[in-house]
């Protein structure tokens, strides 16, 4: 069974640009979660999508947005990039949201802002 896959592996942008990160969940998993792992801050919850809908978001500005497609894959968009957006962005999926099943993570996208 394929795990959570993310693309691209690395992404280099400059301030003010826009970035799009992609995630494919484990087959059969309907929920996708996005996390930001910045140096010294640990993993911080960004967004949760389930069945195509945004269910919850963490304490991040609106320039962080995303969507989930009918095949349950997801995109994270970050507009007006700032230097502090440099981080590892991790996607996770879950087979049964709300029932406390463990989330399974992808390898992440390393976003670097110059």
């Amino acid at each position: 069974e394929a795990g959570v896959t993310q693309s691209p592996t690395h992404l280099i942008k400059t301030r003010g640009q826009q970035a799009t990160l992609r995630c494919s969940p484990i087959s059969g998993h309907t929920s996708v979660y996005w996390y930001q792992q910045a140096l010294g801050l640990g993993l911080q919850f960004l967004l949760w999508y389930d069945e195509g809908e945004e269910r919850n978001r963490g304490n991040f500005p609106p320039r962080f947005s995303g969507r989930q497609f009918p095949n349950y894959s997801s995109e994270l968009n970050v507009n007006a990039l700032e230097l502090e957006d440099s981080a590892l962005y991790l996607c996770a999926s879950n087979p049964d949201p709300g029932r406390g099943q463990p989330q399974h993570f992808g390898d992440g996208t390393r976003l670097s802002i110059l």
Partner: protein
Amino acid sequence: EDKVVQSPLSLVVHEGDTVTLNCSYEVTNFRSLLWYKQEKKAPTFLFMLTSSGIEKKSGRLSSILDKKELSSILNITATQTGDSAIYLCAVHSGGGADGLTFGKGTHLIIQP
């Protein structure tokens, strides 16, 4: 606001030693506590502890949840260099959020 605190933040030990990593939490509507191991990229799932399953063991790793003290420990016995990683503690709370709240992690280094 939910909060998860891990200690120590970093730890260096020798191969064969036993280590204990700590995690304490303050969350509303606690549902479960999870431990992950992160080596280079993807955190990999180790254990999930709930009110109905407060102790888990897998090989040299074991974990206990203390709901009274709002904390958990992760023990690793007979450590090996392959145990070197960042160990993450996360809590799943209710209220419809479903995102995990993570601690900053413990960076464990096992020296040969």
